[in-house]
């Protein structure tokens, strides 16, 4: 626990403008933290343990408000009872001053804002973890190793160390930053062209890029693998090209500063530059093609690349009339809205074409929310899809997400009275549960 943890808390508050004083929260709270007078309903920071039991029964949404405050300076019940509006969130410098004379660096406060926002999902998955401790999670138990029956036949390993040609030279024909400048997130949409050389790819496949130069030991770099973000007939239809979604890596997984060799190389490429590519790779995580197939796509960050590819291919099919009611459902998690690649274009897709659920784990002033939270909210729809033989599940993104997603599906199935072990065995066997996490 750092200094900020010790002095800051995320205080649960109720918005008096939106609250209708229906007493549901007070009746629900298992620890008696909520009370009221003739004016307001308020939460006692001393008693509230952020169990989130009051959140979903609230009919108004007024219950779901949080403010980071110094532990010694929480808003008292007496003070809350006089409010007509919620106070503005405190700025980092004001918070530091409030910390009872203890100096708290602003950066720690910001980190704490993110860490401390309570989440039902967090609680839930830790409970799930505890419950399943005897039976630790293993990808192999759930993820398919075969492609769906209607997937197109993939070509793999056409270029690489063991192939006839060690690599293929591709030319950069586009490199656009897709997240706003000025944020910490620098994600690029990069289009590469293979000229007249064959390089057939399918949605869900990946390619390898060999960064130039040598590693610390003087050996050539290993290829880095990236999912194709474009559909099978090219980013620009009819051209021999493909696109990639690449996030510039500036820190290692522990948060230490570290420039990722390949991602920085890729993000800095200019139009016209040549690069060495190997692949294609992947014979399982492939798109179902039959026109009634439903695609449930669950991703975080650049795990959106194959989802974008599949969505775009479906969109092109739909525009040409080759579509028969297969549904697309997307759960897309990012830390903030600003971090979402393709945010704009995805938002403008027709809603009857794709059912999009964006989730932000670190949006300012909001409790953390993960893809699995959004999935639980959509339990009724997902439960139907779990038993639909035409439904295919694709999960791509950070490793940490995979387990939460699988457990969310398990809980949804069990709440709906479904036989989860039978369902997941069948999904795996039929190539309808594709997991690609890193």
């Amino acid at each position: 626990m750092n200094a900020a943890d010790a002095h800051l808390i995320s205080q649960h508050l109720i918005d008096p403008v939106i609250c209708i004083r229906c007493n549901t929260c007070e009746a629900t709270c298992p620890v008696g933290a909520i009370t009221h007078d003739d004016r307001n309903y308020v939460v006692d920071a001393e008693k509230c343990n952020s169990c989130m039991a009051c959140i979903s029964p609230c009919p108004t949404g007024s219950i779901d408000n949080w403010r980071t405050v110094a532990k010694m300076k929480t808003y008292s019940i007496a003070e809350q009872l006089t409010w007509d509006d919620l106070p503005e969130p405190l700025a980092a410098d004001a918070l530091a001053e409030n910390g009872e004379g203890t100096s708290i660096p602003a950066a720690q406060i910001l980190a704490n804002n993110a860490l401390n926002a309570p989440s039902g999902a967090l609680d839930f998955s830790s409970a799930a973890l505890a419950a399943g401790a005897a039976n630790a999670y293993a990808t192999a138990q759930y993820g398919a190793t075969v492609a769906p029956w209607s997937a197109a036949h993939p070509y793999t390993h056409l270029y690489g160390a063991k192939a006839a040609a060690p690599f293929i030279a591709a030319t950069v024909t586009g490199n656009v930053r897709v997240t706003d400048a000025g944020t910490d997130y620098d994600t690029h949409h990069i289009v590469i062209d293979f000229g007249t050389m064959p390089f057939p790819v399918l949605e869900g496949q990946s390619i390898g890029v060999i960064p130039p130069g040598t590693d610390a030991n003087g050996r050539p770099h290993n290829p880095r693998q990236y999912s194709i973000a474009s559909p099978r007939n090219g980013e620009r239809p009819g051209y021999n090209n493909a696109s990639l979604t690449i996030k510039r890596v500036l820190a290692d997984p522990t948060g230490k500063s570290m420039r990722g060799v390949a991602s920085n190389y890729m993000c800095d490429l200019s139009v016209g530059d040549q690069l060495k590519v190997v692949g294609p790779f992947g014979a399982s995580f492939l798109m179902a093609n039959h026109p009634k197939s439903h695609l449930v796509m669950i991703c975080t960050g650049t795990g959106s690349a194959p989802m974008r590819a599949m969505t775009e291919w479906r969109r092109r099919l739909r525009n040409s009339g080759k579509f028969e009611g297969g549904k697309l459902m997307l759960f897309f998690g990012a830390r903030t809205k600003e971090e979402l690649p393709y945010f704009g274009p995805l938002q403008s897709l027709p809603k009857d074409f794709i059912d999009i659920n964006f989730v932000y784990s670190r949006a300012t002033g909001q409790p953390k929310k993960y893809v699995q939270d959004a999935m639980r909210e959509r339990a009724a729809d997902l439960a139907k899809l779990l038993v639909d033989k035409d439904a295919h599940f694709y999960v791509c993104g950070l490793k940490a997400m995979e387990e939460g997603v699988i457990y969310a599906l398990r809980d949804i199935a069990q709440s709906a009275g479904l036989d989860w072990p039978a369902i997941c065995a069948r999904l795996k066997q039929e190539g309808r549960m594709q997991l690609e996490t890193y």
Partner: protein
Amino acid sequence: MSTSINYSEKIPNNVNLNEDRTLQRALEQWQPNFINWWDEIGPTGAQDSEVYLRTATSVDPAGWAQFGHVKMRDYRWGIFLNPAQENRKIHFGDHLGQDAWNDVPGEYRANLRRIIVTQGDTEPASVEQQRHLGLTAPSMYDLRNLYQINVEEGRHLWAMVYLLHKHFGRDGREEAEALLVRRSGDENNPRILGAFNEATPDWLSFFMFTYFTDRDGKFQLCALAESAFDPLARTSKFMLTEEAHHMFVGESGVSRVIQRTCAAMNEMKTDDVSKLRAAGVIDLPTLQRYLNFHYSVTIDLFGADESSNAAAFYTTGIKGRYEEGKRTDDHQLRGQTYGVLEVRDGKLVEKQVPMLNALNEVLRDDFIKDSIAGVGRWNKVIDKAAIPFQLTAPHKAFHRNIGALAQLRVSPDGRVISENEWKANHDAWLPSEADRAFVASLMGRVDGPGQFANWIAPPAMGINKNPVDFEYIRFN
């Protein structure tokens, strides 16, 4: 008894329905009649729409609100009771301190059945009253809220029908059938309570109805949630969580109408009613008249101010007071008094009567306090727009049709007045035909995502953290 709901059964429930085959069969026979009722008299023109509805998958907080697009006809109506409290004791009336009842005591059977039937009758009635509103919804968001209310009123009917089937034998089954046969506003076979035979002609009436009349539901359910008859208490508690949404729709709906009107008043720099009406917003005096009407009609629902039935319900433990468990008196009330109104020398004065006989008035006064607090919140919206106008709840003797005040003419400020003065002011105090015609003229359906009729402001936030322009209904 588990908190999770078995959705693999024909009737979702958390009462182990499959262990009582007779009951299960009886309810399964009632179910198609319910669906027929829904098809016949439920929301019009919505059969194919997929509505973003909240469905409970368990009665604990985690499963309480599951959202998804479903056709209303496919909504999983079922039987959900709050978890039983171990060794629950009766906490008021003559049986104070005894174990709560899991079955109906023979001597209270008639009264309990009557209370359950009266409560149950209001649920389908409001669906019937509101069935045409979908055609004039001011937005997709509001239409979704209407439909959510409709399916939940349907579920409340289920809740009461379960009690009738489970605990009242053949009489109960007959009453459950009759609940599907009576019709709101039908001269030959009306719903039991007067207010539930009034049409809900427009969305302003709907918002006022859900604010005031569903709040009556809240107070009745709160009183029943205290009942010595434990299944009734537990089912009422679960219904209250749903009822809260209905009051939210009313409170926020009226609030948004006020917000829009105030914005127009400030844009046009006028409080001239005719100019505001020409601009297509509902002027504040009209809102006041609608408020007067719905408030007065609703407080009649609490019944006569002095009632020996109310006393009997309390002393026998059938129905408690609002927040009975939080009160600190002796919970028997013998020898205590309460003030009710009567007219003496042409003036309203309070007289003290035995509290047990005045329990309808006690509940009415609790309701009034709760209602007026919300009117205060509406006034904050007007204050924020810096407009010198305040909405007020009329005097509780105004426009009454039940109890000792029924035959009186009383002004909104509580003066007993002559028939002539009443007639002269009727249209200033209650919505006139012209007011209703004007409000009706504004009603036209707006149903694109994120679009709102001119007379109402968008809500502050969407449902379940979705954006306001979310596609809450998929029209198929």
